[in-house]
């Protein structure tokens, strides 16, 4: 474990000093010549060895055309360095949307790779740190390609995509050109739902304490489609900023008659994560039954509502429960 930590710290240092990675970069990331690196691939090395052997044979047998052939092939290899470099140069990469997932599922990060050149750029590959290179893709002339990177998730919270390598071995597979990116891409990871949760809690405080489920300003109760009459203060700007639709935040007063999924009623033997897992499972169960529910977490209360927006808001609360303050919500 300690060794792995040392290696990852060393890698970060190398990234910073050699590959000029300076933390998360604002979009779009445009690949300038100073951040593109080239080195021969393994087949490039065997190509070099073959040429060296051919050169020695040419010297030994005094083959003038042998020299010429070796020099031509060496020239092709050198030129392919420039072509590989050019295939990445001025490429711009921006983060796309990543839909939230449950922990344990694969997060699907979308990166938008744009080519502002009049020629297509073939055989590009995007590789996330620690992954094996997947299939290559092409970006047509003056076009944008959306590439999806799958990342494993293990814990809830805000998952940053982290270090991504864009690489190409175009044109001949002898040279690999690459650049290391830190796109500003995040994926919200909900807690994993408990596999076999107990049934939804019976409604504890049904009865007179119940208030009208009328609209109020007290508690956030989910989102609904925007109406022109709605107050701009209630527009869910965060959704809009993520290229989402115009939505209005719905608030309601206490809806005691509804199902309340309450942190504090859970058995004390459960730790934080297992509580969140159970709440998550309950939210999904309630949603599948079409029941409205409220969520009560320490310090947070979300009023009763139903619908996918409400569910997502609740799940997001669970995902970010006591997460780092700097993680954007």
């Amino acid at each position, binding site marked *: 474990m300690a060794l792995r930590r040392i290696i990852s710290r060393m890698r970060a240092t190398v990234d910073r000093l050699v590959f000029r990675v300076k933390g998360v970069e604002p979009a779009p990331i445009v690949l300038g010549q100073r951040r593109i690196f080239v080195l021969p691939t393994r087949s490039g090395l*065997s190509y070099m060895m073959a040429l060296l052997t051919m050169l020695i044979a040419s010297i*030994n047998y*005094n083959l003038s*055309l042998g020299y010429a052939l070796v020099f031509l092939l060496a*020239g092709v290899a050198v*030129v392919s360095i420039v072509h590989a470099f050019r295939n990445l140069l001025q490429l711009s990469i921006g983060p796309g949307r990543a839909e939230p997932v449950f922990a344990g599922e694969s997060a699907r990060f979308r990166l938008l790779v744009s080519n502002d050149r009049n020629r297509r750029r073939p055989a590009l590959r995007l590789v996330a740190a620690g992954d094996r290179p997947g299939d290559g893709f092409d970006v047509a002339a003056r076009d944008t390609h959306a590439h999806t990177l799958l990342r494993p998730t293990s814990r809830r919270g805000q998952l940053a995509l982290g270090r991504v390598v864009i690489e190409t071995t175009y044109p001949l597979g002898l040279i690999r050109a690459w650049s290391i990116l830190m796109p500003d891409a995040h994926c919200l990871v909900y807690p994993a739902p408990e596999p076999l949760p107990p049934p939804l809690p019976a409604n504890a405080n049904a009865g007179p304490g119940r208030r009208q489920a009328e609209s109020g300003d007290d508690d956030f109760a989910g989102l609904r489609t925007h109406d022109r009459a709605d107050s701009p203060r209630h527009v869910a700007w965060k959704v809009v900023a993520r290229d989402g639709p115009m939505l209005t935040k719905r608030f309601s007063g206490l809806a005691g008659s509804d199902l309340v999924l309450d942190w504090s009623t859970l058995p004390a033997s459960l730790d934080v994560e297992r509580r969140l897992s159970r709440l998550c499972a309950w939210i999904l169960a309630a949603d599948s039954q079409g029941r409205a529910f409220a969520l009560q977490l320490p310090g947070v209360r979300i009023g009763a509502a139903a619908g996918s927006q409400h569910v997502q808001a609740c799940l997001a609360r669970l995902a970010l429960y006591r997460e780092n303050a700097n993680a954007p919500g």
Partner: protein
Amino acid sequence: MRPAEIGRLRIPARVWLFATVTLTLAPHAMAQPMWLTLFCALLLCWQAYELHAGPLKRARRLVILLLAISAGIAVKLHFGQFFGKDPGVALLAVLLCLKQFELNADRDIRAAVLLSFFLQLALFLNDQTLPVAGLALTGSLIATVTLLSLQDVRANAGQQLRTGGLLLVQALPFLIVLFIAFPRIEGPLWGLPNDAFRATSGLSGTMEPGSISDLSESSAIALRAAFAGPPPPARMRYWRGPVLSQFDGRSWRAVAAGSAAAPRYVTTGPAFDYVLTLEPHNRPWLLALDVTAAGVEHARYANDFQLLATTPVRERRRLALRAYPETPLGPVEPAGLLRMNLQLPAGFNPRTSELVDELTRTAPDPESKVARVLDHFRGGSFIYTLRPPLLGRHSVDEFLFETRRGFCEHFASAFVVMMRAAGVPARVVTGYQGGEVNPVDGVMVVRQSDAHAWAEVWHEGRGWIRIDPTAAANPTRIDGGLAAALPDDAFRPLMMWPALEWLRDMRHQWEALSNAWNEWVLGYNPERQRRLMERFGFEQPDWRTLGALLGGAITILLLGLFGWAMLKERSADPLDRAWAVFCAKLARHALPRHPWEGPLDYAQRLTQALPRHASRIRHITGVYANLRYGPPNPKHVQLARKLLQEIKRLDLK
């Protein structure tokens, strides 16, 4: 299918590889044994079938394994070993053909491409002419496209060929720079295998009926001579090869004559300076014009007046020589040598002895004996032919009395036998006679078909005198070459047909080109490199000079290439271009447009910063915004060009 449609096809890497392999192996077909050529052709056909119809299912691996083993055994049986040049090339060819059936990963295709590069190189061991160079260039293109098609799988054949061609064209400057400035080392670096040099056609050290007429059908070039002044007349164009003194009744052999660093003769008479370019023939004979002045480096002067190289001529060799054709040769010879040149095997050619006796009994001196025997050849209605009938045990008898048809070796052999029978020391000299000046570059070309045999007789006090009995029987052979000497209806090689004048003209052009190629490309060696560097102004160039020159040139080439890579392509839309010019102009005045800024916001910021130019700026940005975001304007292009003019006129000082 039309070519344009083929260009749009997607061709998988395996098919490109097949094309590479076929193109690489095809020129080897000539040099390899027949069974190997057939074997490879069979495997290529099978591969073509599999590319078309998919791999065979049953027993494929077993068949391939058996084929590999049997090919290995066949190579061992044919060549006797696995090591060496020829068996190596044969094994590589077999391996490359079989490799195509075991392509499981991209790596296998790459390995096969590298193998074909080796075979491409092996081709140059036999042949480095221009067509082979062109073939190798095409092979390199297809090999490059094969590698490319592994990466750029979604491109069509036309795009792949274009990219491959671009790579090759951009690599050419590197080829030229490296070829000129890469420090040349004279090989070999270590001992070469014994079979490194193929037996090439040319004279052999012996002569028997048929040995020279075989050569006469080959128009391959034996040597070239570039004369400083006018070339010697046809009767002096005797290029001396092995001198044959020993006769066993059928074949003539050379006797080791001994050699020295300086010639045994004193040169006199007119001199001819020339540069001899000798094609390799794997023998030490330099085939110089009779006879060479003293002072040739790396050469020995044989006692039989041949000029010999110290090592066999294994690559094309150039020598600056001076010939004195009228030098008297060997006026004083040891008695043993003369005795050897009188010997005849007992029991052969009895009728010839009788004839000689009859002809020369009354001759007063050796000179008149020679003249009488020559008269016999002149008057004997002998026919000069490339296809003489076969001769039996008494070859000279049969030639003189029965067939009367022969080639130069028959005439020379019969004449020397007759002279020896008459008591005059005589011997056969082989070599080349003649040569044709190429009108394109003025270089005299001597071909294998000019191979010739003549005689030398020795007279007391005068030494060895050249006598050409073929010339006596058929004088046109010497003045007009083989083509002129043959009767009109005789068999003759294609190139000697009188009607094919234009073909011969083309051949002249081609051979002049080949000569330049030989001289400048194939003959570029450490010595030439040094001289070229000196001409560039480098005094005493050594490997450091070359290294610096190479480094500098490659840096310049690389900078040029990276400059090309970083060229920003101009947008096709003139409006985009105009706007880019505008933004760049203001960026120079420290007012760059922010990426998120639209034209009107930008204009607002600019007018605040540059109030003096506010109206112009507002106008320009207004026109741009109108054209960009307004309704489509039919005069878009003209207006955009006009805007660009305005932007260029905008003076912000």
